[in-house]
């Protein structure tokens, strides 16, 4: 292989590497980009296939997601804000964790405490969750 050919091959390899790096960066950015809760359900596979009575098969979020949606007011958000809430993957996963188990709070009882990064301002108790001592993990 001549020097010219060698240089060309090296340049090609470097270009491919740079493209690969850029693609990985883009994928990483996409993964980190905020998405809707329903978007995260699909992307993370938190779904079950449901067969309806008419025989059609649809995909529905699993019950922990449904509990998290209620806890964080995601449906309220869609209703009042006219669009889906957007949150990062990390916030979405923390929201699921928050809906799995209640924690001991200042009132001496165990409450499900929403993850602040996933809580909609349109949740009926959103403000009180933030303002009140109740809901603050002990």
């Amino acid at each position, binding site marked *: 292989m001549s020097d010219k050919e060698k240089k060309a091959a090296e340049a090609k390899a470097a270009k491919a590497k740079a493209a690969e790096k850029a693609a990985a960066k883009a994928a990483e950015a996409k993964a980190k980009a905020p998405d809707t809760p329903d978007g995260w359900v699909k992307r993370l596979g938190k779904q079950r296939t449901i067969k309806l009575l008419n025989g059609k098969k649809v995909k529905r979020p699993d019950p922990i997601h*449904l*509990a998290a949606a209620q806890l964080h007011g995601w449906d309220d958000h869609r209703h009042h804000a006219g669009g889906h809430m957007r949150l990062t993957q990390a916030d979405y996963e923390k929201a699921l964790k928050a809906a799995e188990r209640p924690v001991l709070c200042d009132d001496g*009882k165990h409450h499900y405490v929403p993850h602040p990064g996933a809580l909609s301002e349109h949740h009926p108790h959103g403000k009180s969750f933030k303002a009140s001592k109740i809901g603050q993990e002990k």
Partner: protein
Amino acid sequence: MGIPNQEITVLDPGLGLVEASPDTPIVLGVSSLGDDNLLRTYARKTDVVSNFGQGPLPEAWCKALDIAGGPVRGMRLTKSVVPTFGSITTTRTSDSTGTIAVAITQKDAARAWQIDDPAGTPVFTEQTADFASATTADVDPLPAGAVTGDQFAIGYDQPFTSLEQIISTSGVGGTFAYSYYNGTAVVPLTGVSDLTVSYTAAPGTYLSTWTMPTDWVRQSLNSTELLYYAYAEVDTGPYGTDAVLSQGQINGHGAHDDYEVIVEILKTGTVATGTFRYSLDDGRSYSGEFVIPSAGDFDIPFADITITFTPGAGAIFFEDGDVFEFDVNAPYYAVVDLATAVTALLAQSLEFPFATLTGTPASAADGATMFAAVDGHATSFENINRYIAFIMDSGDDTTTATLSSYAAVSSRRVMPVYGTTDITSAKPFEGYSVPKRSAVELLGGWAADKLISTDLARVREGPVPGVLEISHDENLTEELDAGRITTLRTHTGRAGFFVTNGRIKAPSGSDFRFWQFRRIMDVACRRVFIEQQNFLNISVRTNSDGTIDERDALRLESIVNEALKIELTQPANAEGTRGHVSEVNYSIDRTNNINQSSTLISTVAIRPLGYAKTIETTIGFALEVAEAA
């Protein structure tokens, strides 16, 4: 001694039998005994109590057996939400100084084994009695000069995460790690905090704790009973000086239910002289009289709560009339625990019409979170053609907060129930006869007792049994029924308490406004599903356009209609007339080209009974009055 005589005592209940139930529902919740996520069926309360002990699950299970008869199925859920104690309120007669403290009763290990050479020819030396007793320096947990692999095994009939041990002689030179059996091998426990420092800490009392494993499996050691064993296994040896213990006890297995505790001093004095009694049901029933123990600690049986009396400076220590009050909040399951139980239920082939979720969410917001998950689970069952409704507590909260928290949720299969009842216990014990219970337990039994078409609020069914008081009377403050939350109520001129409406929290406009519509539809779905299973892959004659031949359509319709009639239109309803529904008809589509589509299309139409929810009457004096029929 009196003159010769006989005394005959008739034991009742001896058999503990109950009437057969028309339906076999399931109760889910937590209890002091039993295994998690295993379905059990019992028709006798004695079996429920001996196998599941105390807690919301056995209380509701026994209540259902009392009201509806048996059998009733039940499943214990993992209680990852630990019990909590409210603050103690003290009311003194004058200026006594005594106080009480409260804690979960510590338990003795069921077995304690010193194991020498477990990997070779194990030599078991039992330490159980010495480990339980307070006698000092009588427990040799490890063999003399313990080397790597030697073990001290502590067994209990429930998984445990906290062990308190008293070191009397500190060990020197070795270390151990805690481990457990996962069904395949003995593996390390995680999240371990061992304040005994492998029994090398200075003499004293120390806690060892760890994270509860999810796969802990019982074992039999030395041909004894199956138990959950925690192993302290030497990983660095030998011990130059052998550790000697005085005692060890297991923490965290008590306060099994919701209790409203009152401790009342009956005789003025200090420890060993004063006396007291206790109540677990807010004073509606009391224990006998007890002397305040000289050591200060008194264990309330069944509840497994320890009260510690501390006399203080005096001169009056505990005085007649002094009252100490506190609440205990029962352990509970979390959303994730319910998901595990549902996975186990989905794997069962047994069918059940509905499930009662015992226990009370700490608030309405917590209840709504649980509700959303329960609705998701109901859909999972429906997905595999198992048609199940759920009854759950809406949460311990105000009516306003309940309406607000539940405003955004709906389900065609879940009935949230609000409020508590002061109700006769189905399994009373000393000091616990009329506890305050979630109304959900009552509703579960009440629903199991009713025909599928019977409105849970039907006044002629009579008042709900055993209820002395209710926390919320919808008749006085009509707040929650319109929000599709089930409540209890009074009726003017009638004694007792009644269901306001069996409300499913269905979305606006849904047909499933009331419990009976859900039940009827589920019976119809189940029947049609079973009958149509016989139609799968059958052949039918067709017309020239590929549609089903009328003769075959009629034949298939007749099969399903007959079955539906047997379930829905022929049985007597609560009024004594025939039919849980007014009419039902199954029909097969005659326009579908079955040759082409290979699909049989059917429709079921059900006309339900009408329910007299409101009665409007005009009354007045008149000259012309028709003779009454």
